[in-house]
Every structure is written in structure tokens, then in C-alpha cells.
């Protein structure tokens, strides 16, 4: 596999690089901390390469619908947003849900409700997965390191255009602002975009139906396709889980802290492993259920009041038999030492 020299880059910079390397051509967005540097970084790329385009729209609603239009015309378009912007983006994402548009959004989670903080959270999990009206199905990735942020952003475009489901890279202000030495893997093919409607033949991509049954049939088809896709795209990391008695479950950057914590706990002789869902939707259910069979306690660790816990509980087949505890710290970071402390 082709590797390039080590670079020293921020999360924002690797996201922009991943979008360029995925051969995305259009970004429509409205600046909001901590995601603004994705827009400004993309604008810089547009100045260097005339094939790339951007438009700063009047708000996230306009940005989202402009993405929908560009996608239908066959452009690999995307957006990035955060916090209250993620709320406004739901209208257009909902249209993308209904029409099966390959809508790629990078979400830079910040504290909420409302303007909250501009810094960090893991509070936009529900919004990323279930933010639309109806029951739209979305592919949601949660990267835990800067290198993984690159890989998953790049993959988001390929999966979106292959399976035609809206795709979210759910990241946060900490990971995006982290500057780190990275070795990016540029190898891999990009899926070609193609116009979803044609000027010459009539094709109606619908987001409204006259009859209830028609809509239900469509949704059932979507569910079938999504479940089929899940077999291929579902990703997770199991770290040092061999015959572990207790299992930490964490995602995103908290997953990175948990990984360090597992190293420390095992060095202390404790039997603790880590399960880190990389796709939050579809959730790696089967793998989780297999893994918890030998475990006597689950410890959920997240920077929200329990959005990951709810995903885990929905997924567990043996929920009643297993003890679930957790460290829930809405909108603040979780340190390695705090996680280690949980097992004292």
C-alpha cells in the first residue's frame, strides 16, 4: 500500500484533504465553530484548483438543499456543520433520506442544547442518526483518531455513492483541532458520481407520496437495502477483549482515551477490554452480542448523557442479564485516568 511521508496536520486539514482525495468537487456550507476550518480550508483548495467549487450560503438550510441539488446533477457535493447548524441541516438531510441521495456531512460536535459551547461534545449522536422526520436511514461513522478521520471521510463518499444513503462523519471539536503527525494512506479507488436525474429522460425522485401504502413500500425497501449494506459497511474495533471480564464501550475520541485506559488497566492485571463501534449506524450488533457473552459488566463511557448507552441497549439481546454502568459527562472531555479510576 502506498504511504506518504509523515505530515503534521490538524483534524480539519485531514478532512479537507480527504474530501479532495475522494474527488469531491463542491462544498456548500455555513461557517460554525468548531467546523469552520473545513469550509475555509476547502476554500483555499478551491483557489489552488479551479475544478473545485464552494458556496457559502445564507444558512445551513440553504447549504443542505444546495447539496441535494448538486448531487442530483451528479456532482460529488458535501457539507460540514456543527451544533445548532446540525439542527438546521436536518431539513435537507431528511430530503436526502427520502430520496436516497449520497449526501455527505461532516458533523463537528459541540456542546448543547442551543449554542452551548463551541468546543466539544458527543451530544449529536441521536441527531446524526435520527435527526430527520420519518425514519430515514443514514450511515454514521465515528472516527477516534486523526488518521481514522481521514480514512472514514474518504470512505464516506464511496459508501454514499455506492449504497445511496446519506452518510455522516460524526466527529468533534477536539479531534478536529488536534494537530498530530499522521501518515495518510492515499491508496484506493474513488466511486464515480453520476447524475441521478437526466435532462433527456423523465425521472422522478420522490420525497412525497399520495398513498400511504406507497410510502410504506418504499421505506420497507430502504430498510431491506440498508440491512443488506450493513453486512458490508459495519465497522468496529475490539481491543484486548480476549476473555475479558469487563468491557468498556466508547466511540470517537473517547474511544482513543479508553484504549489507553485498557492498556493501563491490563498492565495492572485487570481483565478489561474495549469495544468501539466505528459505525454508529448501522450499529455492530452481532459483534457486540457475541462479545458480551463472556463478560459480566459493561462500562459505557461517553461525553453525553447516554446516547451511546441507548444504542448499546437497543442492540443487546441479553440486556437483562448483563450489568451496565457508565460514565456520562455531557459536553466535556474524558481523560484516561478517569476511565482507569472506574475500575478501582
Amino acid at each position, binding site marked *: 500500500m502506498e504511504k506518504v511521508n*509523515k505530515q*503534521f496536520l490538524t483534524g480539519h486539514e485531514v478532512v479537507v484533504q480527504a474530501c479532495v482525495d475522494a474527488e469531491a468537487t463542491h462544498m456548500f456550507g455555513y461557517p460554525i465553530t468548531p467546523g469552520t476550518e473545513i469550509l475555509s480550508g476547502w476554500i483555499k483548495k478551491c483557489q489552488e484548483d479551479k475544478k473545485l467549487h464552494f458556496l457559502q450560503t445564507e444558512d445551513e438550510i440553504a447549504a443542505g438543499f444546495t447539496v441535494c441539488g448538486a448531487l442530483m446533477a451528479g456532482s460529488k457535493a458535501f457539507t460540514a456543520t456543527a451544533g445548532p447548524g446540525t439542527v438546521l441541516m436536518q431539513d435537507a438531510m431528511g430530503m436526502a433520506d427520502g430520496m436516497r441521495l449520497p449526501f455527505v456531512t461532516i458533523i463537528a460536535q459541540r456542546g448543547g442544547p442551543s449554542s452551548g*459551547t*463551541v*468546543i466539544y461534545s458527543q451530544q449529536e449522536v441521536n441527531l446524526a442518526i435520527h435527526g430527520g422526520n420519518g425514519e430515514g436511514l443514514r450511515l454514521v461513522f465515528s472516527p477516534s*483518531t486523526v488518521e481514522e478521520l481521514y480514512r472514514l471521510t474518504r470512505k464516506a463518499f464511496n459508501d454514499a455513492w455506492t449504497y445511496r444513503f446519506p452518510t455522516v462523519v460524526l466527529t468533534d471539536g*477536539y479531534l478536529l*483541532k*488536534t*494537530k*498530530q*503527525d499522521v501518515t495518510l494512506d492515499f491508496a484506493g479507488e474513488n466511486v464515480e458520481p453520476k447524475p441521478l436525474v437526466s435532462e433527456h429522460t423523465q425521472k422522478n425522485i420522490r420525497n412525497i407520496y399520495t398513498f400511504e401504502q406507497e410510502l410504506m413500500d418504499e421505506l420497507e425497501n430502504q430498510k431491506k437495502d440498508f440491512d443488506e449494506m450493513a453486512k458490508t459497511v459495519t465497522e468496529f474495533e475490539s481491543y484486548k477483549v480476549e476473555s475479558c471480564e469487563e468491557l468498556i464501550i466508547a466511540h470517537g*475520541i473517547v474511544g*482513543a*482515551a479508553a*484504549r*489507553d485506559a485498557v492498556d493501563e488497566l491490563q498492565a495492572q492485571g485487570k481483565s478489561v477490554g474495549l469495544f468501539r463501534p466505528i459505525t454508529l449506524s448501522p450499529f455492530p450488533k452481532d459483534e457486540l452480542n457475541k462479545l458480551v457473552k463472556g463478560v459480566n459488566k459493561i462500562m459505557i463511557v461517553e461525553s453525553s448523557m447516554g446516547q451511546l448507552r441507548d444504542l448499546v441497549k437497543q442492540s443487546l439481546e441479553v440486556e437483562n442479564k448483563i450489568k451496565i454502568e457508565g460514565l456520562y459527562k455531557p459536553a466535556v*472531555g474524558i*481523560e*484516561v*485516568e478517569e476511565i482507569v479510576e472506574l475500575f478501582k
Partner: protein
Amino acid sequence: MNIKILLSGDGGQGIQLIANMICQAAFGSDFHVTSIPNYGLEQRGGVSLNFIQISDKKIVYPKFTKPDILLIMSPQAKERVVEYEKNGKLKLEIGEYEQILKENNVPRQSQNIFCLGLIAKILEEREILKKENVFELLEKKLVTKSGWEENAKSFELGTL
């Protein structure tokens, strides 16, 4: 080897600039480096932090609670990092250098560069980087800007 450095000061004091210089120099010496800034809404006046890790192994999680080196550049920053101060090993507090800064006429806006000198010296002793390399990076960044002479002198003073 893993060294954790927490830099703290007021917004506008130049914390992020010196963080960048330290990281670039360590990266140039082929170490794994992470840096994560933390500041609020304010353009000036708030507390500005930067968490740096330098390691010979790949770094998974960029934040930490126990800094090996803790820089405190203002009373407001000191309040903010009180939890880290408890766990910190080596503390560099600007207040303790008041006399030297005064005697050498280090202007307020060069105090961060003086602190950069202090840290560069420590990191050279620990064979992480060369202070000349930090100076070169600094020169490249600031040589055309006003106050370069004072900055160069302040850096030198910090490394003594």
C-alpha cells in the same frame, strides 16, 4: 519516552504560537507529536491552553491530566489549571521570572517568547530538540514582524 506539556495563558499572550513552535521542532526531530488547543469564544481576554505530547511511540489520545511541564503565564490561567498544577511535575510560572524580565527590559508582548526559550532549553536537555531549531522556526515566522529584535533577545534570555 512521552513528555506532556500544558501551556496556559491569557488569550492574546501568544500561547498558541509558542505551542506551534515547540511542536514543529519536535516533529522535525522525528518524534510523534500531538497538540490540542483549548479556548473559548473570546478573541482576547479568555484563557488559552494548549496540550502537547511528544513521544517516541504513536500517541492515541491527545489530552492528559498530569503534565510533565506546566507553563502558567497569567493569574487567570493559574486559576484555570489548578487541577493540573496539583499533578504537574515541573512548573514554570511567569511571576517567578519578574525580576529577570524587568532587568532585561523584556516587553510584555515578548514574554511568551521568553517562555518558549525556557521550554526549549529544558527540551534540549532532554534530547527532544535543539534550541537553535526552535529559534530558526521562530525567525522564519516573526523576522519580518515588528519587535523581532526584542523577541530574539527574549528567546535567548529564556534559554540561558
